[in-house]
């Protein structure tokens, strides 16, 4: 993985000094809260309901074991013993004191980490495929390009006060595992007919109040031009993106307003001037960065049938079936450590689990881990012969729930329990659903399904692209939940459709149950929930869910029927 050189270290050191002084001036009232707000946000520090939340950048989701141990240290020393992995492959801590944040940054810098631009109206952490470098369907490893983008965007002087936040995702495989279509810029590394490397360049995707799938603005951008072309997009957006309404300020709204053709014309006109300029990437620079992402020293092994070797062990077979992913090198596999154990908020991990995951990485996976945007952790380079031993250890620490890709592998934002933006709680909804469908045999029968929950329209829980999406809404001070189906991420990204009036929290498990009943009734053999919805449409689901009232325990009607 990438390692800091003296320049990276210098910039981070100077950043900490700058931020430490900003905090000092805020505490001395030399800076007003309004002036301090964008400064702390660009350092990932949010004011939440109860305390400050600090979001730390995990560039493209890749972590060294010592960095994971640092998270455990921060959880213990500055927080309440746990952290929350986010849908943007970062980690956040929910109980932070402002006065301590400069020291946290100093601790982070000792393991080459920071919190720069993890929030605020600037270019955020670039996200990528958690299986980058090991996926069998990979065309090109996207991580070196993500690192180049990280450096270029860090403190870019012209783009620190954009109309709104700006998120870039990059994928380098046949299957899109980076959800590129719902990002402000979504890049796919491709080869052209001549075998040259470049990017299919999408822009204008996003979620929030107006979910929009991104548009391709360039089919093939040679890799040398990655930074200059991105700069052109940024300059068009910085000058022309709306600033009068924060809900209309993302690049997706500008792109829609101008139309893809006109937007692209403006970008190309801007780029004409930048093309082949000093920010054009050189072979030497790209090779230097690529050299940091060389494969580890794999042994020469052969693929084995690990399940057959443990014949009769159904629990292990289930885990292999769900949590073990193919690897391009024979004899190896990628393992997903599930942070979706029933009873634990999705994406949460304790300090002990973090230390333990770091140990597993050191012993089983060349000392590296990856955070997925589904809020799990991946050990990407495990020998197949070690899977059984790894499973036993992970199981003992609550990290081997065999539910990856299943109903209980939900994406869920922190919601109203923590977040001051939220309209409604999301973690208790996830918990109630998880409890209702805790039966793994049932989950395996349902198969692949993405259930995504957001506590408000900002859509941190990616509800728009969930096969089932749940959105917390506020009506006259009470919390309600709007349900959509038919969303999808990946190559066939789609925005879900709302099935009808909202539900109360207590109704939600039954609503999910009814949706699943329709699927079980109408599915063809081998058809996933998403495929079934795509085939039969939302009408049968809607009809069944609303056919009879959903009563709370004790028979009282709840939900909008009652609320009227």
């Amino acid at each position: 993985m990438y390692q800091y050189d003296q320049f990276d270290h210098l910039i981070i050191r100077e950043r900490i000094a700058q931020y430490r002084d900003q905090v000092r001036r805020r505490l001395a009232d030399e800076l007003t809260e309004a002036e301090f707000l964008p400064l702390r946000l660009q350092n990932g520090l949010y004011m939440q309901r109860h305390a400050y939340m600090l979001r730390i950048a995990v560039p493209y989701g890749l972590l060294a074991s010592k960095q994971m141990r640092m998270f455990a240290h921060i959880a213990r020393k500055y927080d309440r013993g746990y952290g929350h992995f986010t849908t943007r492959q970062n980690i956040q801590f929910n109980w932070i004191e402002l006065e301590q944040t400069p020291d946290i940054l100093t601790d982070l810098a000792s393991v080459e980490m920071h919190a720069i631009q993890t929030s605020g109206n600037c270019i955020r952490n670039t996200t990528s495929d958690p299986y980058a470098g090991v996926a069998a369907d990979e065309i090109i490893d996207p991580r070196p390009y993500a690192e180049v983008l990280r450096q270029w965007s860090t403190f870019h002087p012209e783009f620190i006060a954009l109309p709104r936040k700006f998120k870039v995702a990059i994928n380098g495989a046949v299957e899109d595992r980076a959800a590129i279509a719902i990002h402000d810029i979504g890049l796919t590394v491709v080869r052209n007919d001549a075998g040259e490397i470049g990017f299919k360049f999408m822009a204008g995707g996003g979620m929030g109040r107006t979910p929009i799938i991104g548009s391709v603005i360039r089919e093939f951008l040679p890799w040398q031009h990655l930074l200059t072309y991105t700069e052109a997009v940024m300059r068009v957006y910085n000058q022309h993106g709306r600033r009068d309404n924060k809900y209309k300020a993302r690049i997706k709204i500008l792109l829609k307003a101008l139309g893809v053709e006109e937007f692209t014309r403006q970008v190309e006109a801007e780029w004409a001037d930048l093309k082949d300029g000093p920010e054009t990437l050189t072979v030497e620079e790209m090779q230097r960065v690529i050299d940091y992402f060389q494969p580890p020293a794999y042994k020469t092994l052969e693929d084995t049938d690990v399940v057959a070797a443990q014949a009769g062990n159904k629990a292990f077979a289930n885990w292999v079936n769900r949590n073990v992913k193919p690897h391009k090198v024979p004899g190896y596999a990628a393992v997903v450590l599930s942070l979706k154990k029933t009873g634990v908020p999705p994406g949460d991990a304790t300090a002990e689990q973090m230390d333990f995951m770091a140990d597993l990485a050191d012993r089983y996976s060349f000392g590296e881990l990856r955070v997925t945007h589904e809020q799990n952790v991946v050990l990407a380079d495990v020998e197949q012969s070690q899977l059984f031993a790894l499973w036993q250890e992970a199981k003992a620490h609550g990290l081997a729930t065999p539910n990856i890709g299943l109903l209980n592998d939900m994406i869920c934002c922190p919601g109203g329990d923590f977040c001051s933006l939220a309209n409604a709680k999301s973690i208790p909804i996830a918990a109630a659903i998880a409890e209702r469908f805790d039966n793994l045999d049932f989950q395996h029968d349902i198969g692949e399904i993405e259930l995504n929950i957001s506590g408000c329209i900002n859509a941190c829980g990616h509800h728009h692209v969930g096969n089932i999406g749940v959105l917390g809404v506020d009506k006259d001070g009470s919390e309600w939940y709007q349900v959509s189906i038919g969303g999808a991420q990946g190559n066939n990204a789609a925005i879900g459709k709302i099935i009808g009036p909202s539900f109360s929290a207590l109704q939600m498990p039954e609503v999910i149950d009814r949706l699943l009943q329709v699927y079980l009734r109408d599915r063809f053999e081998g058809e996933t929930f998403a495929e079934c919805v795509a085939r039969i449409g939302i009408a049968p689901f809607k009809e069944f869910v609303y056919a009879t009232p959903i009563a709370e325990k004790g028979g009282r009607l709840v939900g909008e029927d009652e609320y009227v």
Partner: protein
Amino acid sequence: MSKHLIIKGREVVEDDWQVLRLAEPVEGAPAHDPATVAVPAGKFIVPLSLWLVQREVLAARTAAGEIAVWIAPDERPETLKGLLDQFPLIAVDFPKFTDGRGYSIAYNLRTRLGWTGELRAIGDVLRDQLFSMQRVGFNAYAVRADRDPHDALKGLSDFSETYQASVDQKVPLFRRHARPAPVAANNDGAGI
């Protein structure tokens, strides 16, 4: 004539330019109309829109070096193409420090329009934005009146190195330095 302190280059100096804002009523003329607002005597930085409609009226004073223009976030610096040479300085207004359009205006003035004279940030100009302002080509800063320009000056030296190219440094880090190749992975000294 009133004098106040601004930052020029890396020094705090006295300055006698005044900024004319249309929203501020001027005696004897209806406010907000750039065509009829009279520019009082003295050295004035006037709105671009005003100068464009009154350029004939102001021609003599412009030639005498008493008139400069300021550009608002929603105005295009290209409007001044071919006209820049007559101004002793160009200013860019930041009505709120969170509005970043002025950075792109500065970039365009320097790199596309070739402005090499004084480029002054006016408005909500604060210490923590000065480093970025300097990078995109500003070289003078009229710090907000309630703030000490001597304190703000410190903002210009927050960083001694930067990754990307901009106006102040036209060559990105990767072209300026031979950056080291990876060394063998080192997981010792986990830094805790």
